[in-house]
Structures are given as structure tokens and as C-alpha cells.
């Protein structure tokens, strides 16, 4: 049994990785290097004629990738920053104060962990506020959607930090703001990593909410752009361009993961299982 397991396990892992991840990845990479005629019926063959250069160039220029990338950055980065800072402030109060009102406010603020955002009436509200089709509107919606996650993780984390650290600073005459910036925020570093990754994973690849709030056009984010490019009649079944786009679009997330792999893995797991 153990001998079979010792040799069988790595073989099984290799087989699973090859089939489940290798094949789709291979399809994307080879197809993105094919001319249109070969790519129209996608298969796993190597390209007979290699033209990765022109495909990637087309995807970047015709797909408005630079604009999409910039749009994504301009929406996702402020959202992440707001989710972290506002979340940390709220979590500090929720973790340290005890009263019926505090627990009620906490329960309310983490209700977004389970409840779905009401996307249709979000559009209605943004129109009335004059924020429809704007980046501030999108940032507000993402921030509202992911605040629950960050407040939940951070409140649990702060409760585990001994309050004596704050008291020592208070005796030295530090104001609450100073204690928050100098003591609480630095201690939150591990959970900030977790929250950043979680928000990035969802917000960077979101199409659904971006469609309703930004509605394509000038301000379309990277994935929304891909959706428009891929569903435009002109590009239908142009797998070589779609996959060139997919490769370029996925690179930033893969790069972020490779650089911060250890932190990300421990961040995700420490936040989840308590």
C-alpha cells in the first residue's frame, strides 16, 4: 500500500496537473501564436505558421489594452486602499468596544459577506447621485461590496492583539489617531495582505458589476474590454486574438502571485481557518 502510494502519488499529481492545468494552458499559448485560419477551429497542434508578434500586437492595439489596464488600475487600486483603511478603522472600534450598539453595527457591516449586492438598484442610485458610468461610482460600489470581508478579517485579528500595547502608548499621551496609525495599522500588516489579495482576486477580474456601473465604452476595465472584444461580431471566434488578450491580461496577477507567493498563501489560509 505505502509503496504504491509513494510512487503512485507523484505520478497521479503529474497526470492531474497535465490534464487539468497543462492542457488548457497549452491551448491558450499555442492558439495565441496561430494565424486566424488555423485558430478558428481550436486544437492542441503547434502552429504551422508562428505569428505571436502580430497577434499580441493586434490584441494590445485593437483591444485597447493599455486603456483597459489603466482603467482597471484607476478603479481597483483606490477601492483596495479604501477597503483597507476604512475597514481597519471600523474593525478597531468593533474589536475594542463592547455594547449592544457596537455588536449590532458589526453584524450589519459584515452582512455583505453573505448577502448579494443589489446590482440593479445600485445603478438606479448611482444615476440619481450622478455617479453612473463614473470611476468614483465604481470605486464606491467595490468598496461597499468588499468592506464586509476586510472588517470581518480585521476585527477577528485585532481581538487577538493584547490591548496593553495600546494602553502603554496612551499613558505616554498618544491620541487615538496616533495610536491607530502608529500601533494598530502596523500590527494589521499580515491581515492587510490577506484582504488585499481577496479583493484583488475578485475586483481585478470582475465583469458583471463593471458592466452595470461603468457600462463599457471609454472607462471599460480590462476584463470588460475583453468581453466587448470577444463578443463583437468582428472578433467572434477569433481565438488567436482572444487568447493573446487573455495571456497579457493574466500576466499581472500571475506576476503578483509569483513575487508574493509565500505571503499570499499564508495570508489566505490564516484568514480563513480560525
Amino acid at each position, binding site marked *: 500500500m505505502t509503496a504504491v502510494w509513494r510512487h503512485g502519488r507523484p505520478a497521479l499529481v503529474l497526470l492531474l496537473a497535465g490534464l487539468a492545468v497543462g492542457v488548457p494552458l497549452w*491551448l491558450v499559448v499555442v492558439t495565441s501564436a496561430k494565424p486566424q485560419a488555423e485558430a478558428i*477551429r481550436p486544437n492542441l497542434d503547434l502552429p504551422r505558421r508562428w505569428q505571436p508578434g502580430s497577434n499580441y500586437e493586434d490584441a494590445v492595439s485593437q483591444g485597447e489594452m493599455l486603456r483597459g489596464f489603466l482603467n482597471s488600475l484607476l478603479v481597483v487600486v483606490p477601492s483596495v486602499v479604501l477597503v483597507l483603511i476604512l475597514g481597519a478603522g471600523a474593525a478597531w472600534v468593533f474589536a475594542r468596544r*463592547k455594547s449592544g450598539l457596537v455588536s449590532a453595527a458589526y453584524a450589519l457591516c459584515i452582512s455583505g459577506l453573505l448577502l448579494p449586492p443589489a*446590482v440593479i438598484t445600485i445603478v438606479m442610485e448611482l444615476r440619481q447621485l450622478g455617479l453612473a458610468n463614473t470611476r468614483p461610482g465604481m470605486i464606491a460600489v467595490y*468598496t461597499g461590496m468588499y468592506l464586509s470581508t476586510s472588517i470581518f478579517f480585521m476585527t477577528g485579528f485585532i481581538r487577538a492583539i493584547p490591548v496593553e500595547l495600546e494602553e502603554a502608548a496612551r499613558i505616554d499621551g498618544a491620541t487615538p489617531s496616533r495610536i491607530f496609525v502608529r500601533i494598530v495599522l502596523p500590527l494589521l500588516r499580515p491581515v492587510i495582505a490577506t484582504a488585499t489579495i481577496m479583493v484583488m482576486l475578485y475586483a481585478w477580474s470582475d465583469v458583471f458589476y463593471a458592466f452595470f456601473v461603468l457600462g463599457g465604452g471609454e472607462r471599460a476595465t480590462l476584463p470588460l474590454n475583453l468581453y466587448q472584444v470577444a463578443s463583437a461580431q468582428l472578433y467572434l471566434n477569433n481565438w488567436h486574438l482572444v487568447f493573446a488578450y487573455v495571456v497579457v491580461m493574466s500576466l499581472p496577477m500571475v506576476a503578483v502571485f509569483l513575487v508574493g507567493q509565500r505571503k499570499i*498563501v499564508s495570508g489566505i489560509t490564516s484568514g480563513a481557518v480560525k
Partner: protein
Amino acid sequence: MTDTVVRAEPAPVTGAPKKAGRLPRAAVHHPWWFALPAIAVFTGFFLVPNLLNFYYPFTDWSSYHPDIAFTGLDNFQTIADDGSLLRAIRTTLLYALLAALFQNGFGLVLALLLEADTRFNRFFRAVFFLPVLISALATGYVFQALLDQDGAVNSVLGTDVPWLGSTTWTLVLVTLIHGWKWMGLSMLIYLAGLKGIPGDMLEAARMDGAGPWRTFWSVRWPMLAPAVTFNVTTALIGSMNTFDIVQATTGGGPAASTEVFNIYMFRIFGQGLYAQASAMSLVLFLVVVAVAIPLVIGLRRREQTL
């Protein structure tokens, strides 16, 4: 949820006069205004839309006329009569159930396969995490290219199966893709759960003569309860909000057999029937609440009894 909204309102009145004149120490040390921006944004852009969602489904709000009038249950009547209401509920629940099953099944198997902390395993954990990093829309396109009738799978197998054309099995295939995309995340959480099991506990089981199978069911699986709670809850709730994978592979077809709530809302909103889309959004809200509350309570109780 609405209970908490109601409860939060009168509370300040009862809280304030208790220590009138002097601020309590907690208020000085951890003042409310640190929490207010978060509460304001969350209320303004999450709770208020959800409250509005209890009004607009009962109106005739649409892109066809500028005024909005109360129409009672007309929208619910419409979606119930054309069959889309029941279909969306059934499809979404089935989708969530299967997607959570596949995501957790794959994730747990991978975690058990890659449990030991070796260089080989660490590399392959990263490999299996790759799909999590790729956007769900891109995932959908990749599998469309694989499973299309003119696609790669048929060309490799030499078959001509319309994988995405079955009104029964395509939904299962799409949930398999959903499970594939998120299995890496479940795997990481199960790995953390496995790591948290004390070594001497496994040692004791081995000393008592328990085989790997017995050890799994009697020691590992009960000890994994918190990881199961987290994974099952996030997978079920997350997949009820699914959109990208379905849109990119089938667009809701064939014959609306994969039309989950969000696909329906997207389509109907595009036709300008906003109130009708809002009605479906309210139903989604109610379905999620109806599933989530017993689920969380049940799984928490299970953790305590195991």
C-alpha cells in the same frame, strides 16, 4: 438582515443618556468616528441599494418611459407566468450545489495529495492555484474553445459531441468548470486545516492500528470541520452570484438551461426592463438568505458536535 437594520436605529437613543455629561472611557479611547466612514460607505452603497430593491420590483421602472409608477406584483406575475422565475431558482440552486461539490471535492483531493511540505508539492500547489488567478471570463473562453463542437476536445478525441449543447448535461459541465477555477483556493484552505491537526493525534491513531482510510474518517475529516464550514459556505454563496463563467461558455443557453439569476438580470436589464430585473434581484436576495442562514447555523453546530 432587515431585523438588524431596524435594531440599529433606536439604539443610539438608549445608549446616549446612560452616561450623560461625561464621555465613557471607550468613547475617548476608541471613538466612533473611526468606524463612521466604513459604516457610511457600506450603508450608502450596499445596504441602501438592497433596501431600494424592496421597492423597485413593485414598480414599472423601465427605459421606455421617464416616470415610475407603483404596479404591485405585476413584475413577479410576469416572471412567474413565463416560467423564468422557477427556472432561474432551480438552475441557480443546482448550479451552486454542484459547483460547491466539485470545488470542494477537487480541493480536498488535491490537499490530501499535496499534503507533505516538499519542494515537489509546493510547486504543484502553485500550479493548481493558477486557475484562481486567471479571470473567470478568460476561464470561460478557454473552456468554450475546448468544448465547442469545433473545439479542441472533439479534435483530440476525434468525436463530434456538442458538449455545450445539451439542455441536461451542459449545466453540469459548466459547474465542473466553476469547480476547476476555484479548486486551488479550497485546496489552500484544506491544506491549512490539515496542517492544524496535531501530529501526535495522527501518531496515536496509527499506534492504535488505524489504516489511512480509518485515520481520514475518524481523525482528519472531523478536524477539518472549520475548513469545511468556510469552504462550503463561500463556495455555495459565491456560486449563486456566478456570471462570468456561464456568460463566456454558454451565455445562458442552450434553451436557457444554464440561465442563472445574474445571466437573466443581465439580459433583461439590457432590454431596458429594469423593474423586472430588479424583481429577479430581490428573489436572488431572498434565496441567498434562505440558504445562507440555515447553512451557517447548521455547519457551526456540526463543528461543535464533531
